[in-house]
Each structure stands twice: as C-alpha cells, then as structure tokens.
C-alpha cells in the first residue's frame, strides 16, 4: 500500500509495540502529529518541555523494560532532548528519539529551526540516522528499535526531514525483529567456575546490567548457590532483594560501611554487569590489589576499561548466569557469611537536624509495595533514597546514575507512572525540583497518581556537603534562600500540597499524601535540615580503606 512517510512512521511504531509517546509538536513534525491524530490509537503525552519528554520516555523504559519513545520538532525542540538522551545513554536505557528537521533541500542552509541534531547527538547515542529517502524510513525505524533494545541497550535518534514525512512510497508491515541474546557455551566459563570454587570470600557486585538483562532471578539463584554476599551499584539497586540476608546494600562513594568492609575482606570480586565507574572504584589500582577480579559484561569495551580483570566473559548477564550456575557446586561459606552479617549491623547516618530525611524515607516503605516505582533526582536525597529505601524488585529504583542529571526525576516519574499504571513516588530536592517543575502541569493534566517527596533543605545539599568537607565551608552559590512556597506552587498547578515540618508529621502526612494521590499528584514539602550529610562517604579517588562513617 502507498503511505506517506508520517503514516509509515506511525505504522512502524505500532509494529514495534509502542503504545505511548512523549513529545511536543512544532513546525517540522506537523505531519507526524497529523498522522498521529488521524490514526488515533497511540497515547501521546504532551509534556511542558522536550527535556521532560525525553526523561519521561527514559523513565517509561526503565520502569517497563520496553523501549521508550520521544518526539520533538527540529532546532530547539531537538536540542532540548539532548540532556535526556545523554542521561539514557550513560545508563544504557533503550530509547528511540524522533526529531523532525527542515526539508532535505533546506538542510545545511541554516534554515529556520534547523540544527544538526544527528551531529550533536553522535557521542550520546548508540546510533543515529538522518532519513533522506522515504523508501528507507520503515527499515530505519525498525533497525533503530532493534539497536536500542539489543546488546548494551541505549538511545537511538532518527532525524526525519519534513519532506520525507509527506512523500509517499510503498509500505508493507513486518514483524519486529526480536532480540535474543546469545547463549554462553560452558567452555567460556570453565575458568570462571574454577576460580569461584577456589574463592574463600567471594563478593558479588550487581550492576545495571543485571536489570537490563532481566537477570534478577538468576542472580539470586547464583548468589545463593555460591553463598556470596551481594552489594549493588546505584544502577543495580533492585536487581537483588534488599531484604535478603546476603544483601549488603549500595557499594561505592556513598555505599554502606558493610559493603566497604566486606569488599576489603573479599578475595574474589564478581562484577556482574557493572563498569567500575569512578563512583564505585575511586582508586582503580588499589581496587584490585590482592583480589581476583572477574568481570561479566555484554559490552566488550567495558572489560578492562577501568579496572584490569583477571578473568572476564563478554555476554548477556542473564545468559551467563544460566550457564554458570549449574556448573557450580552448592557452596558452604559459613564463616564468610557470619563475618559479613556482623558488618551489617550498621548505624544510621549522622543526622543532626530535627527532621532527618532518612526517617521519612524509612517510613516510605509502609505506604508502598515492592512494585512501586521510586524515581529520584540527583544529590543528597538520591543517595538517601538509595540507602534507606529497600528495593526488592528490579525496575523500581529509577535514578540518573551515570550522567547525574538534576531535573531527571519529574519526567522520569511521569514516564514510569504512565508505563506501569502504578502509584509512583518521586523523591527530589528543592534544587532539582526547580529545574523541571514545569512538568507538574503534565502530571496534573494526566491525573497521575504521583507522590512527590521534596527534601527541602533550602540549599544545594550535596554541593554544600562537598563545600563543607573540601572547600573550607565557603558556600559559594549553594544557598537557595527558600523563597518558593512549594505547597502553593503545587496548588497553582492544580495539585495537592502538603508539608512535613517535624517527625510527628511523617506518618499522618504520608498517609494523607498516598491516599490523595489516587486523584492526582501530591507534593509533600519536607522541611529537612541543611547540614545533614550523606554518609558513609569515600572521597573521590580514594579506596575502600578510606571510608568516612562519621563527620
């Protein structure tokens, strides 16, 4: 059948199982929006800003495991997606970003709202395309989805000039090409199995790769079989149930003391879909001293990139567990487990304020279930959420780990809420919330059951913490003055606003917030202190020996 490019795009999105798009219309995507309107079967969520659309598509993808889709016009529409695309790239989130552009004839002439978005996004996408022939459009869209969702997942951008959207060509439906990760032959794992059998004190570090590969169940079986404690990178939270006796919590810069102590004592490190970022392996050389490092990763370039390994296998994390676990004997490591359990008796932070954030976050579990998506922004509240909320299931902790994008949370929470249909929590700070609070209008418009816990300390808390620790308490530009009345702001958007002003408010206000969220977004302004620290902390570039647990 003959279809226009815009119609072909819609057909291809449906072919790929897309049900929701996040976007913002404009001059060069009018034809796509017209085709969307005429088709009428896809849900389009109009955000307040394209950045919100990109983060929403990202949050949707993180929470559901499906590929997120965002759509923006050329020029500023496209550049507004950039932070969202980079965020998804750093955290290996499958995303397809579609942008319009000026006609092919006008490309390269500095036309109105023309920008070389393919050039701009080259370093932050797995791949990108400029479609210059309508006959190539369908296969480009199909390939884009395949690339985004295969191997190490990531964002792909398709730039579609306006004339391509109106030109007509033949179109035939095609079933989407399913990605099946390659299985791992046992011989690739013999050396690893032998090393694990020999290990006296193995430690598993679970990373985002376990979640992207849907490997949680097999990770649990693996850890149980080899009787190894498990700690998690920020991206890996939720991959392993936090309530399990083998779980030690977050590892790295703001990881638990138990994880740091266990790390120091471990003789074998099993890096499962994690990339030894500087926030985990601050000192790349000391990290491996006296240990056997075994790394599993689907990305060939991650192996030996940051920390030199003794053994490594490049494959899908779930496929590795599937082959490896049956090769191993059920281990008994009673002494080691006893030792790590002792490390776990860990005292909570050192909070001085009258209302410490951890008390709110610890209470949160009483109002959520294991499937509740919890999105965060970036900073102290993010680390406290990682430390004090217990994530039992994958795809429930949604946070910008690699890029550390302030302003990520609002869009991400919207995307996750829409994708899962579940009551969703956003933990944010006053600094982060100011960045993309415009998306409150989106959440209200869509009547999303969203509880926003705003950790309001009137400062940029994490930057202030560094200024306190490393810059002689010179608080350059981190005082926010706190002029915004967040309750009134929420009400102005048509949402509900509540305040937690002291410890006594925590339970009743949370109860009220979670009940009221059935009718739409609720913002809870939590008046925490400005000098609470995120602890423990390992200063940048330092090793696990140098953990600070007190300040």
């Amino acid at each position, binding site marked *: 059948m003959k279809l226009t490019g815009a119609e072909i795009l819609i057909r291809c999105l449906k072919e790929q199982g897309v049900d929701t798009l996040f976007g913002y219309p404009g001059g060069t995507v009018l034809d796509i929006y017209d085709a969307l309107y005429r088709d009428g079967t896809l849900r389009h969520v109009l955000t307040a800003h394209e950045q919100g659309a990109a983060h929403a598509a990202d949050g949707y993808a993180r929470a559901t495991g499906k590929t997120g889709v965002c759509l923006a016009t050329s020029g500023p529409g496209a550049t507004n997606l950039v932070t969202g695309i980079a965020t998804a790239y750093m955290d290996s989130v499958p995303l397809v970003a579609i942008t319009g552009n000026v006609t092919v004839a006008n490309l390269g002439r500095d036309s109105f709202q023309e920008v070389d978005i*393919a*050039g701009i996004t080259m*370093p932050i996408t797995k*791949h990108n395309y400029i479609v210059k022939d309508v006959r190539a459009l369908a296969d480009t869209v199909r390939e884009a989805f395949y690339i985004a969702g*295969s191997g190490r997942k990531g964002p792909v951008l398709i730039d579609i000039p306006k004339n391509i959207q109106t030109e007509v060509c033949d179109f035939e439906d095609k079933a989407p090409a399913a990605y099946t990760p*390659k299985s791992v032959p046992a011989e690739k794992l013999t050396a690893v199995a032998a090393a694990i059998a020999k290990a006296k004190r193995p430690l598993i570090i679970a990373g985002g790769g376990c979640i992207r590969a849907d490997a949680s169940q097999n990770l649990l079986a693996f850890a149980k079989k080899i009787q190894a404690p498990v700690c998690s990178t920020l991206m890996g939270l939720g991959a392993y149930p936090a309530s399990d006796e083998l779980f030690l919590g977050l590892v790295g810069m703001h990881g638990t003391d138990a994880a740091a102590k266990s790390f120091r004592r471990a003789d074998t490190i099993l890096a499962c879909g994690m990339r030894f970022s500087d926030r985990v392996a601050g000192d790349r050389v000391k990290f491996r001293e006296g240990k056997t490092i075994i790394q599993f990763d689907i990305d060939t*370039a991650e*192996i030996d990139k940051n920390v030199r390994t003794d053994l490594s296998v490049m494959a899908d994390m779930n496929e590795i567990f599937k082959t490896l676990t049956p090769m191993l004997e059920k281990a008994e490591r009673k002494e080691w487990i006893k030792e790590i359990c002792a490390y776990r008796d860990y005292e909570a932070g050192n909070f001085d304020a009258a209302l410490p954030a951890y008390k709110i976050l610890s209470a949160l579990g009483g109002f959520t279930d294991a499937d509740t998506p919890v999105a965060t922004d970036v900073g102290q509240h993010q680390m406290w959420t990682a430390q004090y909320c217990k994530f039992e299931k994958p795809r429930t902790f949604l946070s910008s780990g690699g890029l550390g994008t302030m302003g990520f949370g609002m869009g991400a929470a919207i995307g996750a809420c829409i994708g899962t249909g579940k009551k969703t929590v956003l933990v944010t700070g006053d600094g982060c919330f100011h960045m993309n609070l415009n998306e409150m209008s989106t959440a209200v418009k869509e009547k999303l059951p969203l509880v926003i816990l705003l950790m309001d300390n009137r400062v940029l808390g994490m930057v202030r913490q560094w200024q306190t620790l490393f810059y002689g308490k010179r608080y350059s530009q981190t005082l926010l003055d706190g002029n915004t009345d967040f309750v009134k702001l929420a009400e102005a958007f048509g949402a509900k606003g509540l305040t937690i002003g002291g410890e006594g408010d925590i339970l009743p206000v949370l109860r009220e917030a979670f009940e009221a969220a059935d009718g739409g977004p609720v913002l809870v302004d939590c008046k925490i202190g400005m000098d609470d620290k995120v602890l423990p902390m390992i200063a940048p570039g330092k090793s696990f020996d140098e953990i600070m647990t007190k300040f």
Partner: protein
Amino acid sequence: MEKYTITALVANKSGVLTRVSGLFARRGFNIESLCVCATENKDLSRMTIVLGGDEYILAQMTKQLDKLIDVKKIALADEKLSVYRELLLVKISAPAEKRSEILEIKEIYKAKVVDLSPGSLVLEITGEPSKLNAFVKVIEPYGILELARTGTIALSRGESCLNDLVDYNESI
C-alpha cells in the same frame, strides 16, 4: 609510545568518518594517520588507522570502534603478518646543478619523477612508512617545497581476510 595499525571495514555511508574520528577525539586517543578508501564491495569502505599509544589504548580503541554500528569488522594489522604501504609525493627544489644528485637518490630508493620544471621536481615513492621516512630525511637538505603522504594502508598476508571476522554487534 608505540604505534599500532588497525584496519576496519565500515559501512560506506556519509557520516561514518565523523563517527570514527569523533570517537578518537572524545576518548582522547591520538590518530597518526587515517586512510579511507572504497573496496571491492560497494557497501563497505576500508579504513586504516595508525594509532599512537599503548596496549590499553589499542584495546580500548579497537573495542570502542567495534561497537559502532557502522563499523563491521576490525582488527589489528600485526606487523609480522601484514603488508604496510604508503605513497608519498614530494616537491623538491631542484636547480640544474643539484638535479643529478637528487636523481641518484631517487634511483636508490626506487622513486619516480612525476613532474619536472626548471627549478623543481616532484617525486613519487611507495613503500613501508619507515622507508618513506628514511627517504624524506635524505631528500630534506635539497629543500622540500611541499609534501603529501597518503597515510598507511595495510593488508594481512596469506589467505585470511578482515571480512572473515565476526561483527561484534552480531555476536551478542
């Protein structure tokens, strides 16, 4: 700093060179030379990249390039198992009295005269980069007016071909 020669088959599309060179720039790697050419297959171009660095940089660079969707096959062209060639054109100041000396050098290096004018001549020479470097050193005192080199190209010896390798993106 060691030198390594990497050969790659890449999609013959616009933008591929930018993807490859951009990768070098943002990862802080150093390209000595980069040579792109058409191949017997119209869908593929061949790149020969000479890289300065150490084993770590070589491994990272090869893997990072391999991950690019448009990079299909990639391998280190091992010095012992490959043939390296480069072509050089050089315009030398050659007044009549110096010409015979220059032509003598040309003979020894098996170079060719490809242009001759009253005051200058253009020589063409192919060979391994080390031979070209030696030639430039000898010819330099006569006064090099201009010089152009193609950068190294390389093929493996024997029957094995780059195309026999597996594309990383299809191996996962």
